[in-house]
C-alpha cells in the first residue's frame, strides 16, 4: 500500500436497473487533502460512497485506495478506511463505549489496545464524559461525533463521510466541519466529504462537483471557481448544476 498514490476512481459506472446513477466518473483525491464532493440530492454521491466502501461493486471502471485495487483486495482497502454513512449506524441501546468496543472488535482490536484507543478517540471528540451513556440519550450532534470517533478508532488513513451534517443545527454543523478539517490538517488524513451544502467547503479544500451522475468539475476550489467564472462556491455550484435550457422548460 502506497499512501502517496492517493485515491483514484477511474471511469466508474453504476446503474440501478435501467437508471444510471454514475456515468464514467473519474476522480483523483490527493493524499492528506480535504476533498468536498458537492452535488445536489440525487447526484450520485451516496452511490459513489457505497462503491468506495465496497458495499456496491462498480459495473465498469476501477477504484484504487492508496494503490490497492478495491475489487481485487477489498479487505486491505477497507482496513485503512474510516467511514461515516449518511444514515446513522449506531446501536441506540448500547452505551457510547460499548458501540466503540463493538467496532474495535470488528477491526480485530481487543483488550488494552482497544481500551486505550477508545479512550483517546472519545477524548479527542469530546465524548469522554459521556462514555457510559446510552446512545439513545445523545443529541444528533453528539451521535455524529461518536460516529466520527468510531471511524477513527482503527487509525485509518482515508476518512469517508457521506453527508455527515444532515439533521444537525447550524452550530453543530459548523463544529463538525471544523473538527474534520482539523483532523485532516493535523493528522494528514485524506478526507472525502460528500455534501450538498456549499458553506461546508473551505477555500483551501479540493472540490469535486457531481451532477446527474457525472463529474462537472474538480480541482482546488480556486481552480474550479476560475474555470467556471464564479466568484464563490455557491456561484460555481449553481453554474455547474443548472438545468440545460430544454430541461428548465420541461
Amino acid at each position, binding site marked *: 500500500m502506497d499512501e502517496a498514490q492517493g485515491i483514484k476512481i477511474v471511469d466508474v459506472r453504476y446503474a*440501478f436497473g435501467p437508471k444510471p446513477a454514475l456515468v464514467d466518473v473519474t476522480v483523483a483525491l490527493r493524499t492528506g487533502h480535504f476533498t468536498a464532493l458537492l452535488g445536489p440530492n440525487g447526484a450520485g454521491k451516496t452511490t459513489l460512497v*457505497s462503491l468506495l*466502501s*465496497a*458495499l*456496491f*461493486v462498480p459495473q465498469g471502471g476501477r477504484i484504487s485506495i492508496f494503490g490497492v485495487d478495491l475489487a481485487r483486495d477489498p*479487505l*486491505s482497502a*477497507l*482496513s485503512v*478506511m474510516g*467511514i461515516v*454513512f*449518511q*444514515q*446513522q*449506524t*449506531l*446501536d441506540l*441501546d*448500547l452505551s457510547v463505549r*460499548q458501540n466503540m*468496543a*463493538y*467496532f*474495535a*472488535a*470488528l*477491526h*480485530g*482490536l*481487543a483488550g488494552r489496545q482497544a481500551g486505550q484507543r477508545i479512550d483517546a478517540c472519545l477524548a479527542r471528540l469530546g465524548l469522554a464524559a459521556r462514555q457510559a451513556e446510552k446512545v439513545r440519550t445523545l443529541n444528533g450532534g453528539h451521535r455524529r461525533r461518536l460516529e466520527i470517533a468510531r471511524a477513527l478508532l482503527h487509525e485509518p488513513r482515508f476518512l469517508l463521510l457521506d453527508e455527515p451534517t444532515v439533521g444537525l443545527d447550524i452550530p453543530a454543523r459548523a463544529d463538525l466541519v471544523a473538527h474534520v478539517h482539523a483532523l485532516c490538517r493535523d493528522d494528514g488524513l485524506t478526507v472525502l466529504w460528500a455534501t450538498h451544502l456549499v458553506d461546508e467547503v473551505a477555500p483551501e479544500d479540493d472540490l469535486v462537483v457531481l451532477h446527474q451522475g457525472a463529474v462537472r468539475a474538480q480541482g482546488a476550489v480556486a481552480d474550479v471557481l476560475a474555470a467556471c467564472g464564479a466568484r464563490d462556491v455557491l456561484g460555481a455550484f449553481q453554474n455547474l448544476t443548472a438545468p440545460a435550457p430544454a430541461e428548465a422548460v420541461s
Partner: protein
Amino acid sequence: MRPAGIYLTCMIGVLWREMLRFLHQRERFIAALVRPLIWLLIFAAGFRSILGVSIQPPYATYVTYETYVMPGLIAMIQLFNGMQSSLAMVYDREMGSMRILLTAPLPRWYLLASKLTAGTVVSVIQVYAFLIVAELVLVDLPPLGYLAVLPVLLLTGLMLGALGMLLSSTIRQLENFAGIMNFVIFPMFFLSSALYPLWRMQESSDLIYRICIANPFTYAVESLRFALYLEAAPVSLGVVAGSLIVFFGMAVWGYDPRKGLVHRRGQG
C-alpha cells in the same frame, strides 16, 4: 491473509454485542420462554387425553404428550429466534447499522457466520431456560440428555438461523416481514413431526406426510428428540447439516454485492 486473532476477536465482538442486545430486550427473552410454555402447559395438556403416542424410538415406553412435544417446542424456540434475528437484520439494513458489519475488513462470509453463531448462542440460552422451567413443571428427561443435546442444539440453531439469514437477504422492507410468519414459521412448525408423529400424519394424509418429510424442520426436531435420549439420528443430523450448508451458502450469495438480491435492489 489476516492473522487468526483478528477473526477470533471479531467473532467474540459480534457475540458480545448480540448478548448485550439480548439482555437489553427482556421482553424478547420472556416471549421466548412464555411461547413454548403456553404450548406445553395448555395445548399439550389438552391434547394429552385425546392423542396417544405409541412406543417409538427413541422412547423405550409410552410417553406423555408433553414429553413428546418437548423437542418440537425446543426447535420452535430456535425457529422463532432465527426469524427474530432475520427481522433484526432487515431492521439493521434499513436503519444502516448493517453497513458497519459489512464494511469490516474481513470476508463477508465470515462476518455473516459470526452473526449466525452469535444468534445461535442466544437461542441455546433461551432453550436451556425453557428446559429448566419445563423440568420444574412436569417434563422428565434423562439428566445426561441435557448435556447430550447441546451439540445438536448448536447445529439446529445454526440451520434455522441460516434460514432466517437467507430470508433477510430477500426481504426488502420491514413491513414484508409479517409474511414470513404466515408462509415460513407456521407451515414449518405445523408440517413437521413437532406436534404429531409422522405415522399419524401419514394416516390422515399422504400428501401432508410427504411435505413433512421434505421439511428440514422435521429433521431438526428428530435430531433433538434422539439427542435428549442419548441417541444419535444420523440421517436427521445429515439433513440438518446439509440444509445448514445450503441455507448459509444462499445467504452469503444474497449478501454478495456482485451477485445477490441485496445488490439488485440497490441496498447496502
